[in-house]
């Protein structure tokens, strides 16, 4: 019952409906589109968005685990932890600001009282063109701007989070080195995780705390995963402001295990000090530019001390090392203190190598009961090879040849074995008795110590010579043809000599010549060993022929002491010598410090109480001063320790290295220095019966392990 329209001027007209229908279709189509889109997002893509939602409101908080300490054999800390307040910045947040974070950093510089430029430098990522100070870690980690911040300053920053966007202050465990530079190269150091490491190491990626450091050298590197522990993971439900709404899951961190080492803090200190003192004493006559001392437990291969001079304090790495320090540490003037001479240095071993040559002779038909001529010099292949100082000893036993360190006896061995292998042109497979014996002593390959970057040294033979020749032939042949015009300008005769030499190398450089075999026999020429290899060889002689892989690590003990895992000694092999040869060698070595080349150094040493067995070595390298070696073990009748001392360019073994080794023995056994080295008269203890407190009471390495109590305290091992 519709009423007529209000306006009579408008007669009812039929309105078209086409337009309306079209609009209806349009609207239905648009909303159908919304429906389809909704379906697409929620059903086929639902899982994807659910995952995104979880990562959105689940914040994974990685709770860093306390890194385990590194302890000496008694339980004294070599590396421990200290809590420090650290101020750091979110790299992306700061660099994303309109002014690149300058305003925030300049506020921060006032609060921290650090120049703005320094903060800005620390914010830069290290790269080939970016000099330290810079950030060596990943840009996804908070960049450390200041360490060791005072608590009120840190609190100020934490309380005013809105004034310091992107800046955090938090407690942060950092490594502490109670011994300072002691055993620096052995302990290694930590550095922020790099992007590459994160990508390469699954265990780092899954428990990345953002302030994580990773072991870069030494024990910190080798045992990183055990020391690191397992970070805790707390998953929190958060809202858009990051406010915590609930704890979804909580896995507490598992602290890293303590590493108990075979090292003894005292012996290490004595070794480093003795080394430094002995090197200073060798100067200025000798350069004495570097040195190493190794103390091994001959019964297990445990490393009691591993000293390398020059050394450095690993704490320089903390908080971002500056470019000056970094450059200095890598510079040659500073003596490359990062390098551990004990395991990375390689030097010709000189006469200490004669133990290998004697063994090779004894095992290849040269009787231990015969005597051999020891003239002042021998002429081999038209070349004269002489004894040290050209002194002859007549016809002597091999025992005596070791004691007086007669070279000519060994020259002859080397020459004869070279001849029996066919000399320059061997027929068939040469025996290489000398080289193979050296390898049997562990030379020419890494010892397998639990430290990184160990050198393998070099045991040259015919095969090595050929390989070397092939690698250098091109250069040598070029020089043989074109000479040395640059040298000729100043020294034409030397240039001519060099050209002849190059020609020789080019044409017949593959030949293993008599002279080389002869030099090999006394540990000269191309033979290179590391102090550790030599110590390991002498340890094997001492213990009856068992060659261990040296170990610095002795055991892992969990932070609460509940789990103890010992690191078992690993046998690398046996010396390929008969028991007879071995005891013959032991007897000869025992006499060296009493009546031989080391008798001067050990004059007055109470050999009746602790008998030392050892061998001196004085190795020549063209263009360098003679390097001083002393390789030894003690007590000769019940061997416990093998000690090797090297002083690069330090003079003869008896004059420089042996007195250093003596000092280490004195420290271990508690004998005061007297005799060879005049004792300081003022030192009251020294006058008292020649005995001080022994570093290792009982004269043996520590047995057993320190005890870690459930509360984390450590009971030192005692005797």
């Amino acid at each position, binding site marked *: 019952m*519709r009423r007529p*329209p*209000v*306006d009579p*001027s*408008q007669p*009812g*007209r*039929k*309105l*078209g*409906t086409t*337009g*309306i*229908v079209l*609009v*209806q279709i349009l*609207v*239905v189509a*648009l*909303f*159908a*589109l*919304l*429906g389809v*889109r*909704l*379906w697409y*997002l*929620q*059903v086929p*893509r*639902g*899982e*994807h*968005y*659910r995952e*995104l*939602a979880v990562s*959105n*409101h689940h914040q994974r908080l990685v709770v860093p685990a306390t890194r385990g300490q590194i302890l000496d054999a008694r339980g004294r800390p070599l590396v421990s932890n200290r809590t420090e307040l650290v101020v750091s910045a979110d790299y992306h947040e700061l660099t994303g600001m309109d002014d690149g974070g300058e305003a925030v950093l300049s506020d921060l510089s006032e609060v921290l009282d650090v120049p703005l430029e320094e903060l800005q430098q620390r914010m830069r990522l290290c790269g080939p063109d970016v000099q330290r100070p810079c950030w060596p870690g990943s840009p996804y980690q908070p960049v450390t701007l200041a360490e060791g911040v005072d608590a009120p300053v840190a609190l100020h920053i934490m309380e005013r989070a809105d004034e310091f966007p992107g800046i955090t202050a938090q407690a942060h465990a950092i490594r502490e080195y109670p011994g300072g530079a002691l055993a620096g190269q052995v302990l290694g150091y930590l550095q922020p995780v790099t992007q590459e490491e994160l990508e390469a190491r699954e265990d780092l990626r899954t428990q990345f705390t953002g302030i994580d450091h990773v072991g870069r050298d030494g024990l910190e590197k080798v045992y990183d995963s055990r020391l690191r522990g397992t970070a805790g993971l707390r998953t929190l*439900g*958060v*809202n*858009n*402001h990051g*406010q915590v*709404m*609930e704890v979804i899951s909580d896995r507490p961190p598992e602290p890293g295990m303590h590493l108990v080492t075979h090292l003894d803090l005292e012996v290490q200190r004595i070794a480093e000090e003795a080394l430094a003192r002995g090197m200073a004493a060798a100067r200025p006559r000798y350069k004495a530019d570097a040195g190493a001392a190794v103390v091994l437990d001959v019964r297990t291969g445990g490393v009691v001390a591993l000293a390398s001079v020059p050394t450095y304090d690993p704490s320089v790495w903390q908080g971002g090392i500056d470019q000056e320090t970094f450059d200095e540490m890598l510079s040659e003037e500073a003596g490359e203190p990062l390098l551990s001479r004990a395991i990375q240095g390689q030097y010709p071993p000189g006469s200490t190598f004669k133990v290998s040559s004697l063994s090779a002779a004894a095992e290849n038909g040269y009787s231990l009961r015969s005597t051999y001529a020891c003239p002042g010099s021998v002429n081999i292949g038209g070349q004269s090879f002489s004894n040290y100082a050209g002194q002859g000893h007549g016809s002597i036993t091999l025992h005596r040849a070791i004691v007086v360190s007669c070279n000519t006896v060994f020259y002859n061995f080397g020459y004869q074995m070279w001849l029996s292998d066919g000399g320059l042109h061997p027929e068939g497979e040469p025996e290489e008795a000398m080289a193979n014996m050296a390898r049997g002593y562990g030379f020419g390959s890494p010892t397998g110590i639990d430290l990184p970057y160990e050198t393998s040294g070099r045991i040259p033979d015919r095969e090595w010579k050929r390989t070397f020749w092939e690698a250098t032939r091109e250069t040598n042949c070029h020089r043989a043809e074109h000479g040395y015009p640059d040298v000729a300008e100043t020294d034409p005769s030397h240039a001519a000599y060099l050209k002849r030499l190059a020609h020789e190398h080019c044409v017949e450089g593959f030949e293993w010549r008599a002279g080389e075999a002869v030099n090999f026999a006394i540990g000269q020429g191309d033979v290179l060993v590391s102090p550790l290899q030599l110590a390991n060889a002498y340890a094997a002689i001492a213990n009856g022929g068992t060659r261990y892989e040296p170990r610095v690590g002795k055991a892992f003990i969990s932070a609460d002491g509940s789990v103890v895992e010992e690191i078992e000694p690993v046998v690398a092999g046996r010396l390929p010598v008969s028991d007879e040869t071995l005891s013959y060698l032991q007897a000869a070595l025992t006499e060296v410090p009493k009546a031989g080349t080391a008798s001067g150094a050990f004059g007055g040493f109470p050999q009746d109480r602790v008998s030392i067995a050892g061998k001196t070595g004085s190795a020549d390298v063209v263009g360098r001063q003679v390097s001083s070696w002393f390789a030894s073990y003690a007590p000769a009748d019940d061997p416990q320790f093998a000690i090797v001392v090297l002083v690069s360019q330090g003079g003869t073994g008896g004059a420089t290295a042996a007195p250093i080794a003596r000092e280490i023995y004195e420290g271990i056994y508690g004998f005061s220095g007297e005799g060879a080295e005049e004792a300081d008269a003022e030192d009251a203890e020294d006058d008292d019966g020649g005995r001080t407190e022994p570093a290792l009471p009982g004269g043996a390495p520590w047995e057993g392990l320190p005890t870690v109590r459930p509360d984390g305290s450590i009971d030192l091992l005692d005797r």
Partner: protein
Amino acid sequence: MSTHVGLPGPSRARIGRSAAGAARRLDRTLIGAVLALCVIGSLLVWSATLPGDGSGPLEATGHVRRHLAHLAVAWVLCLAVASVDYRSVRAYAHLVYGATVIALILVLTPLGAVINGSRGWIVIGGFQFQPSELAKVGLVLMLATLLGEPRDGETKPMTRDVLYALLVLALPLTLVLLQPDLGTTLVFGVIFLGVLTMSGAPIVWVAGMLACGVAAGFAVWWFDLLEPYQLDRLATLVDPAADPQGAGYNSAQALIAVGSGGFDGTGLFQGEQTHGRFVPEQHTDFIFTVAGEELGFVGAGAMVALFTVVFWRILRIAQGCDQPYPRLLCVGVAAWFAFQSFINIGMGLGIVPVTGLPLPFVSYGGTAIVANLVALGLVLAVSSRDRGFE
């Protein structure tokens, strides 16, 4: 759930005896659909405004209480308007339009308040309202009157009418742009285009205006008339994930909320995205994301369906009119609701740039709710008296 619905009991009494016959002929499908949307909307506002820290999970929030109060007032007004003869409303069209324009001017005076970067509010005492919402009602009424009742015996609006209508549009449009409120400006434009297209105006004008609408969109884009943040919003629409913490953050979080709801949703009050407040403005502009997460495809899809029903019904009513004025009234309201709903939902689904427009009947916001239901009342008034299609 009984708080905000006054039908059929108490409201009928208020409508009064003269309107009783009309009320009987109210479009029940339309009312049912809108009512359902209001109920769902109240629950969503409730969920969206629960404390973010997870405390007191089911205590009714201040927002939901106010929302229910707004709905109650709005429904009363809706039914009141529905009971009035729509033809008599025509006489007040100029008045309503004029009042809203004055309010829009007042917004720009010190009486106005800036909320969310836009000067769109008038605050008097503790009471605040958004004139631009009411202006939509005024504009629909004014345009329908103007184009639905050509003067001088013409059956269709002529050029002069169209020019006058353009002036009627330009006044509030300019005022809203000054706030600035791009969303409402677009709604005004769409209402105008919808009414003009259906008015029977000269085809040249219709085609010209449609072309102008499209051109204006491009002009805004090309001539950089948009605020930088608006351009960012447009840009991130292409790839919301590219910059999740920047301009694309809202869009990316909205997608995560909706997508993570899956087929059946996390359940009402159970949405972790919602409760973590990851989507901003989730009780107003982004309320659809709450539906997407907590009610899933089942619930959110039902909402899309309900909206479709609402527009379909309104357009059917328009189709049934044998007079241009009521038809244009319905078309205007339909264009307004449909455009605003499409933009709002499309924004939550990442297919429309982020624009601040509430979802009709669902979003929190008193002025918008009142304006929506008053407009619905106009449509109901038409349907009860001009049901030519029956």
